[in-house]
């Protein structure tokens, strides 16, 4: 946990963390020492020695004064660290995440990252402000007391010291159980939650098929499983938690028992025993409190680990100095192999070259590696073998900025910022004039969307604003690409093809983009394919055919089959003509 905290604070604050922990340690020991002074003071009081009482009260006062200083120091140091976390952790996370390879951001990771960054940071703040100090002191203070008891009466001291590992072991035993069953219960809980969410998300289907009235069995089962898992967790863990609580009580009982026996034997001074029993109460109390906090501590530990794991993630390796681009507008794959998962190659020894200001269409079945090619060009991932060259330079020799300056991406999922429509287009090039933004928007057909929107160009879109349809989002993405005017454009046509209106705009913009850029298109429309200077037919990660439309058709191979099937789709009628 301390290591995770060090990672989260960063090297600059490692010293501050050590100083804080040091003060916390000193404070806990002093607190224990102050408690120990209770014994001679009480002894003096019970024996009615007022002078001695006064002396010990003065000693206590001095100790308490020092303890207060330590308390103040550790509290302020803890707060300071909490504020450091609060003010810097978000920034550090932001800087770090921005340097991770784009391939790292799966939707699952994104969900977890958002959660860790919000709830996790609050938790870390809390660890420094309110959690660490009570937990540490409620363990160290009793330990100090136990050691001190040895000096007053070795038998009582020994009882206290021996009970500590016992308490620790039962606690560890029970909390290991709790952690384990909690994992199972959490898993059952996640499954049940997922089923409820699935039930909500699939309401159309659920209702279309009457599942809302007769019940949806997997959901019922998941809720039932969760009920059973939770019930059995309670049955299994509570006895163990009770046992853990019992161990503290037993330690206290043992101290009282040993004390009374010693008194009966006459082996201890009665007054000293009374004072020591009072101390014994302060030995057991904090330990019980520490045990009570262990659940919170475990949760905090999990949050810390998740956050630290993000910061430990390896950023994309960038060259110290970017190599200048030698052949602008070219893209070259030389013997590229790549796999997402070990043993499942997506691209195998792939080689091709794209000349500047030409259009290349990639066709192939889903899973043949089309999207992966565009991802490797944009360096979402690094290749396993071979090299990807953009502008004549290996993408690994280019800084992210220099690589991205070469590329415009129009992909299937388009992210819109929670901002106005105009601002979302301007993302393409921040210093574009209003006129340029409008022109790009006009070419991509965004101006048509504008007419429909209540506040025109200034309508907020994205998360909190008006939502745009998939086709409309893609038009925004195309407008961004037009505005950016990069030497190479990577375009995925698939969703854009949904809407005939979109098709028209895509065709228009492609014409314009082709005049000034190199185009690589994951093609869907036959017209796009036929217009390409080069067609790459992909199958299971290999280019099986390459050439122009005419050349490939003449070959009667894979491409011809593809072409025939697609042509059939184009001529579809929902209802066939009667007799036709």
């Amino acid at each position, binding site marked *: 946990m301390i290591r995770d905290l060090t990672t989260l604070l960063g090297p600059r604050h490692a010293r501050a963390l050590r100083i804080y922990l040091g003060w916390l340690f000193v404070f806990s020991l002093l607190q224990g020492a102050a408690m120990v002074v209770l014994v001679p003071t009480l002894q003096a009081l019970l024996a009615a020695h007022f002078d001695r009482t006064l002396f010990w009260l003065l000693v206590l006062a001095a100790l308490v004064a020092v303890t207060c200083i330590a308390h103040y120091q550790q509290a302020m140091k803890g707060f300071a660290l909490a504020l450091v976390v609060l003010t810097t952790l978000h920034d550090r996370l932001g800087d770090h995440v*921005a340097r991770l390879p784009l391939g790292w951001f799966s939707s699952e990771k994104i969900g977890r990252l958002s959660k860790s960054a919000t709830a996790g940071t609050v938790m870390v703040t809390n660890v420094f402000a309110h959690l660490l100090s009570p937990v540490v002191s409620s363990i160290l203070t009793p330990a100090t007391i136990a050691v001190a008891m040895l000096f007053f009466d070795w038998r009582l001291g020994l009882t206290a010291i021996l009970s500590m590992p016992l308490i620790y072991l039962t606690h560890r035993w029970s909390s290991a159980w709790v952690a384990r069953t909690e994992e199972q219960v959490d898993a059952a809980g996640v499954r049940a939650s997922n089923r409820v969410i699935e039930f909500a998300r699939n309401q159309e289907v659920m209702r279309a098929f009457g599942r809302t009235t007769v019940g949806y069995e997997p959901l019922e089962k998941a809720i039932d499983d969760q009920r059973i898992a939770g019930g059995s967790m309670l049955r299994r863990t509570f006895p163990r938690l009770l046992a853990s609580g019992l161990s503290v009580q037993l330690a206290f009982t043992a101290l009282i028992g040993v004390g009374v026996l010693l008194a009966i034997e006459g082996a201890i001074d009665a007054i000293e025993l009374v004072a020591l029993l009072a101390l014994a109460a302060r030995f057991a109390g904090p330990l019980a409190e520490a045990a009570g906090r262990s659940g919170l501590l475990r949760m905090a530990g999990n949050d810390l680990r998740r956050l630290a794991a993000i910061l430990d993630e390896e950023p994309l390796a960038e060259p110290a100095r970017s190599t200048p681009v030698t052949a602008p507008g070219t893209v070259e794959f030389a013997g590229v192999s790549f796999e997402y998962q070990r043993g499942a190659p997506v691209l195998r020894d792939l080689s091709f070259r794209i000349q500047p200001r030409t259009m290349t269409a990639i066709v192939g079945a889903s899973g043949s590696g089309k999207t992966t090619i565009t991802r490797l060009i944009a360096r979402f991932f690094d290749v396993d073998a071979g090299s990807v060259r953009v502008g004549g330079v290996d993408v690994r020799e280019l800084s992210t900025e220099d690589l991205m300056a070469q590329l415009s991406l129009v992909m299937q999922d388009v992210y819109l910022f929670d901002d106005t429509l105009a601002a979302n287009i301007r993302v393409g090039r921040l210093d574009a004039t209003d006129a340029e933004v409008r022109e790009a928007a006009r070419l991509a057909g965004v101006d048509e969307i504008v007419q429909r929107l209540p506040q025109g160009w200034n309508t907020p879109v994205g998360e909190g604003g008006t939502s745009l349809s998939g086709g409309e989002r893609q038009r925004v993405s195309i407008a961004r690409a037009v505005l950016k005017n990069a030497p190479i454009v990577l375009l995925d046509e698939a969703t854009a093809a949904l809407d005939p209106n979109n098709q028209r705009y895509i065709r228009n913009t492609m014409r314009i983009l082709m005049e000034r850029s190199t185009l690589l298109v994951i093609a869907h429309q036959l017209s796009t394919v036929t217009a390409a200077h080069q067609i790459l037919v992909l199958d299971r990660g290999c280019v099986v055919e390459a050439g122009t439309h005419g050349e490939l058709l003449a070959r009667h191979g894979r491409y011809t089959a593809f072409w025939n099937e697609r042509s059939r789709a184009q001529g579809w009628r929902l209802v066939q003509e009667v007799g036709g």
Partner: protein
Amino acid sequence: MKTNQRQNASLRELRRPVAGLIRVGTLLGGIGALTTLVPFIGIAELGRALVEPGPLDLAALAVVALIVVAGLGLGWACTGFALWVTHIADHRLQTFLRRALVRKLGRVPLGWYTDKTSGMVRKAVQDDLQDLHHLVAHHDVEFVSAIVLPLGGLAYLCWLDFRLALLAVATLPIYIAAYAWMMRGFADKMVQLDASFARVSAAIVEFVHGISVVKAFGQTGRAHRSYQSAVSDFSERYTGWVRPLLRVEAFSSMALSVPVILLVSLTAGTWFIARGWVSPIELLVELLIAMVIPQTVLTLNQGLTAQRKALAAAQRITALLDESSLPVAAEPQPPRGAEIEFENISFSYDGDRNVLSDVSFSCKPGTVTALVGSSGAGKSTLAKLVPRFHDVTAGRVLLGGVDLRMIAPDVLYRQVGFVLQDVQLVHGSVADNLRLGRLGASDQDMIAAARQAQIHHRIEALPRGYDSVIGEDAVLSGGEAQRLSIARMLLADTPVLILDEATAYADPESEAQIQDALSAVSRGRTVLVIAHRLATITNVDQIIVLDQGRVKQRGTHAELLAADGLYAMMWRSYSNIDPSVACAGVRRVS
């Protein structure tokens, strides 16, 4: 204040099913807290017996020791069982609330489901139910213990000597005063901070989700800026509020630290003893009790934060459970036939602007009706009125001569099926997903439907065939998923079908096959199709041309072309861009 009342009311309502268990737990917790005092008093009594001059009274010693041990045991058992009982309560409540949510989800109008409401559902089942845990399983027990323990202790001290009771809480006012000073304006500050923190969360989400765009356009700085400004705004506000308080908190918490209490109690106690007000043994009792008070105050304080969170969660869950359900007729009627009629219907989402105005037409059984119009003309809205995603604002929609609102929902859904753009597959085997269409369908029927939907061979090729699990060993492309959903539709065999033609374009590779499946599913039913490519619907029985929510034209393709109106214009501009229309087939060479 009002929010508080509302939140408390929501909470009471939510906890009602397990209120009895919580009460039992609270009672046990209270008893447990009181018995915690027994050992303290017992130690003092032991002390009294020990320091008494003369020979030790062994019997008395043993009795006191036994009482102490019994007190410890009872306290341990009561507190432990109290939490056990409330955890059982929490556990039951979670199941109860999940089921209640599911019931509600099945009854709200389909139109209720949007991105926002899905987010609410997700939050409710994932976070809010969790947040309730503290309130149900811990809060009452810990709160009552934290009140009962010091009060019981103080009462005992009062009985000994009221000055001892006062001494035990001597430092508390300092802490309370400091706390009150720190918390002034707390509610307002919290509202501001919560709002500011919500902005941070939104900025984080945007930053993370938008990272690919930001990187692709070389503007890591941009997202960073809005993210950074949200973060620094929050931390400035927070530190601005908290920093001046830290010193006060660090000082005032000393008032509640055990060493300080020890010093104060011993010093004043010595004086009390010197004055002859109390005995040293009585002071010992005071010490033991005074030293546990700080812990109870901290428990109360920490409980407040968790309670605040839980109350907000409770309110969100109640709000969800209070959503109004789709009205169901008291005496539902069965539809007589499969004809759909729209009678002068109007519809508005916001009650202000009509999306559909005065639309009338009917779809006869066994015919295909196509809805065309530019985007925003109201095609999808109109189609979705038939499965009652929403109820009309004026006019009525009839199925088999009966107003949709008079038909029981389960009957309606057995009549009306729909295949929309986004495919909905559940986590389960392929067979499970198909059988959603008809529970208990035979393998034969299932396979027949899959064959008709052109997906049987693909399923057969999966590692475990029909038993392959979606998303695990059945990884389907968009088009394959579409065909699976069409097979399910065929299995359900509803007489009325609402289709979105764009369904066919989900996956370029299997477009032709989806088209075949759609053609199969359309035969012999009442079909209403949302059309995008005009070429696909040239042979349908009826085309309804919508423009700004009104029916502009109606007729067959030939009739509408001859009329030379909006449809003819659309057709001309459409033919210009679609090569398959212009060249009546395939254009061979570029």
